[in-house]
């Protein structure tokens, strides 16, 4: 039949495009690491193995990531239990506030930490004054600083995943365990915990992968301490491109190993499947002192979690050069924000990020929608492969993809599918697109899977062709999933730092790089103002995606 034929052609085109954009650059990196102008060589591999700095960076990446998982779990899991199981005073508001670190793009979070806990940060200075020290009480540098930022920004995964899983556990499970004589601990260990394994595994994997790919925190706070993503950038700056390829491969191997270790866990799938029964009612806390203690702890915690956001807002009102040694800035102004709008040089990065992210998001949604419809709806052959390719960039740290795209599209060889895009306007949206395919397609695929296939058939028996069915039935019903996918993609692209730093040109410099350069010029007010804009846009887009997208 003809429509079937059309679907096959579309699928083939999509597959080809994905192979070209996702697989091909990675293969090129692998090849380039094993060659030099003289032909095949293991020189760079040997070089990699001989240098202790390489080993230290790789080991640094691994242990930082593992420790990040442990820390994030230690914070996120108890919080999830607290807010999912107990009815606390103000618990609803607090439960929402606790997820707030999610609206800070990585670089903006780092910036806030710098203003808070850096050498001249509010908290550092406060402690220094209180203890009458002559020097700052600590230096926000090295592994400790990186772990602090990671723990702060990544516990949210554990918190959200575990809370959702706890809420989806049927209340009758607790009752059944109780009626069988199981005490609280036995119920937790033998009944509840096993139900949480998928959520825990998913959160752990997500945290590990995010920490492994984390670039902003190590880049700003690392100092002499290198992890592989910062090492790769440094190596490239030195001009050792082929060594950088080998480093890239090593990072990819670690990422793939992590995926293999956690192969049972499927992050983001927790919402799937039919849920029966009611979520257990929250346990009210009756004892007054306990209520008070919990309330104080809860709100205290919220304050700590909100401190970075507030700091950012405060600093964004600081005029250039007025804040040096005072614990609190002496002067405030709106000028920083006015500059962002009025000064074309300052406004440019915002506009850049806006159109780059919009373009990349639109393309990611279109590709993901086509892939999801072809694979899950039309059950076209090769659908599984399309889904796998859409998900693949998730397994590969952002630095790796940036290098891969930079490698593939810096050569003019049309017969090999390579054109020069590096240095043009198009490389950044392309990079954002590739990086966003996994999150976008996961959201959209879930939406498509949740659609009852008989809706299509019903439309067909009512005489609606494919176009009309898509326009009137499928797309309106997918709107929540499309919005959710788009908002995730947009927020990631809008705040992106890791791919941008390697691929931007002056004309396409995004907000994140302008933050960095403002910081270098000690223009903290403008840097913070950019940060606030990023934060607000992210929060607004998330809110739209979450509200229109239902609870997902």
């Amino acid at each position: 039949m003809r429509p079937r034929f059309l679907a096959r052609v579309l699928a083939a085109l999509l597959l080809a495009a994905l192979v070209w954009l996702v697989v091909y650059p990675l293969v090129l990196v692998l090849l380039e690491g094993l060659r030099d102008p003289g032909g095949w060589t293991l020189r760079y591999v040997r070089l990699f193995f001989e240098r202790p700095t390489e080993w230290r960076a790789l080991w640094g990446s691994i242990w930082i990531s593992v420790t990040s998982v442990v820390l994030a779990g230690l914070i996120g899991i108890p919080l999830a239990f607290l807010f999912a199981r107990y009815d606390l005073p103000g618990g609803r508001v607090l439960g929402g506030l606790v997820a707030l670190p999610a609206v800070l793009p990585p670089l903006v979070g780092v910036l806030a930490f710098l203003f808070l806990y850096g050498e001249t940060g509010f908290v550092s200075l406060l402690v220094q004054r209180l203890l009458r020290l002559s020097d700052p009480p600590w230096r926000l540098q090295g592994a400790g600083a990186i772990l602090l930022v990671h723990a702060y920004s990544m516990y949210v995964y554990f918190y959200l995943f575990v809370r959702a899983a706890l809420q989806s556990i049927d209340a009758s499970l607790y009752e059944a365990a109780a009626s069988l004589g199981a005490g609280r601990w036995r119920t937790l260990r033998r009944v509840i915990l096993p139900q949480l394994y998928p959520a825990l595994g998913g959160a752990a994997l997500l945290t590990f992968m995010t920490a492994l790919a984390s670039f902003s925190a190590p880049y700003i706070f690392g100092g002499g301490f290198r992890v592989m993503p910062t090492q790769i950038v440094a190596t490239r700056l030195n001009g050792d491109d082929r060594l950088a390829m080998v480093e890239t491969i090593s990072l990819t191997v670690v990422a793939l190993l992590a995926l293999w270790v956690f192969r049972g866990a499927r992050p983001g799938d927790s919402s799937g499947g039919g849920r029966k029964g009611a979520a257990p009612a929250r346990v009210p806390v009756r004892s007054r002192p306990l209520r008070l203690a919990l309330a104080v702890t809860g709100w205290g915690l919220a304050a700590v979690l909100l401190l970075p956001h507030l700091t950012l807002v405060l600093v964004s009102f600081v005029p250039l050069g007025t804040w040096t040694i005072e614990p609190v800035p002496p002067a405030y102004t709106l000028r920083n924000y006015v500059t962002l709008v009025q000064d074309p040089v300052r406004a440019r990065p915002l506009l850049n990020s806006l159109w780059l992210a919009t373009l990349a998001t639109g393309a990611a949604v279109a590709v993901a929608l086509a892939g999801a419809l072809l694979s899950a709806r039309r059950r076209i052959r090769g659908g599984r492969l399309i889904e796998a390719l859409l998900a693949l960039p998730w397994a590969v740290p952002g630095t790796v993809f940036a290098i891969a795209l930079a490698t593939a599209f810096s050569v003019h060889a049309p017969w090999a599918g390579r054109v020069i895009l590096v240095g043009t306007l198009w490389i950044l949206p392309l990079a954002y697109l590739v990086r966003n395919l996994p999150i976008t397609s996961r959201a959209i695929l879930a939406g498509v899977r949740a659609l009852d296939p008989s809706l299509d058939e019903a439309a067909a028996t009512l005489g609606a062709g494919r176009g009309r069915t898509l326009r009137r039935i499928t797309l309106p019903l997918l709107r929540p999933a499309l919005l959710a996918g788009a908002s995730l993609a947009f927020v990631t692209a809008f705040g992106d730092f890791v791919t941008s730093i390697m691929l931007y040109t002056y004309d396409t410099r995004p907000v994140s790089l302008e933050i960095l350069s403002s910081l270098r010029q000690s223009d903290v007010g403008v840097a913070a103002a950019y940060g606030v804009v990023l934060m607000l846009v992210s929060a607004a887009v998330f809110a739209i995606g979450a509200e229109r997208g239902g609870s997902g």
Partner: protein
Amino acid sequence: MSAFLRLDGLVKRFDGDVAVDRVSLAIERGELVAVLGPSGSGKTTTLRLLAGFEAPDEGRVLVEGEDVTGVAPVSRRFGMVFQHYALFPHLDARANVAFGLASNGVRGTDLDRRVERALALVDLAGFGSRRIGQLSGGQQQRVALARALAPEPRVLLLDEPLSNLDPTLRERTRREIREVIHRVGITTVLVTHEQDEAFELGDRVAVMRAGRLEQVGTPDELYGAPANAFVAGFVGRSSEVEVEVLEPSARGVRIAVAGVEWELGDVSGGALPAPGPALMLVRPEALRLTETEPGALPVTIVGRRFVGPSAIFTARTDGGIVLEVAAPSHAVPAGARVGLMPSRRAGGGIHLFPSSPK
């Protein structure tokens, strides 16, 4: 034969498994045929072949002599009510009903008029602006019916139309569906695994098993003259007993049930089986309780279920054969030793079939 809708030797295989095996059926204009079968019997696949969602490996579907086998569902003009209704959740009842009409180019006041007429047909005249989620299960069912009927399809297909409803609602909805279909006079194929549904709704019932049509006939024919043991067992209540056919007698046939000889007068099931082992299917009302007397099968009453004014008693012989027998509710207490005899007015309630080589 000039049937309105013909299924002509339909075969459908999935990965080598035959789901539908040479199904042929001729349906008159305005007739309602209920396809009845257990799950996995191929009845739903047959319906999907009719709708055009699946392409048959062999055979044809004809409407008024026109071969529509290769016609896509979009252009087939068959209306369908899906098992879970498949109502469009983002549209209200009116927009759901209007969808098919608008697909066919109906616009403006004509559209409005026909939508209102379809809603009125299913007794939902004031409900047009309700969202699907605001309608009860029964109302959703009727919106689905109105939506399928609104574009005036040539054939109406119903896939387990009542399976999603509360048992208390089913009977009423069944009557409503029957009434609407008869008022419209549309040729209808209905698929169900509920015997009551098939018997009440179907002008004729087609019993399906393992992809094949076992028998097609009116409810009376199926009940009174089942073509084989499967149909007899699947339609109505009956007990299965292995018996020995002894010889034809003056009034019918003599058989031995667990060593007791019975003379059966009115035996249906086609030709009388030859002497030898046979399978007897016996309806509860075709047996009667007696004293433990000669010629009666001695049994113990082991259970009782009330069915209106009478009850169905479960009786067991010493050899472990279990039989059901209908009798007034308080005829005998549980545990009683009684006898069983064929009722004098068995009225076609006892069927003998060749012993199936199991």
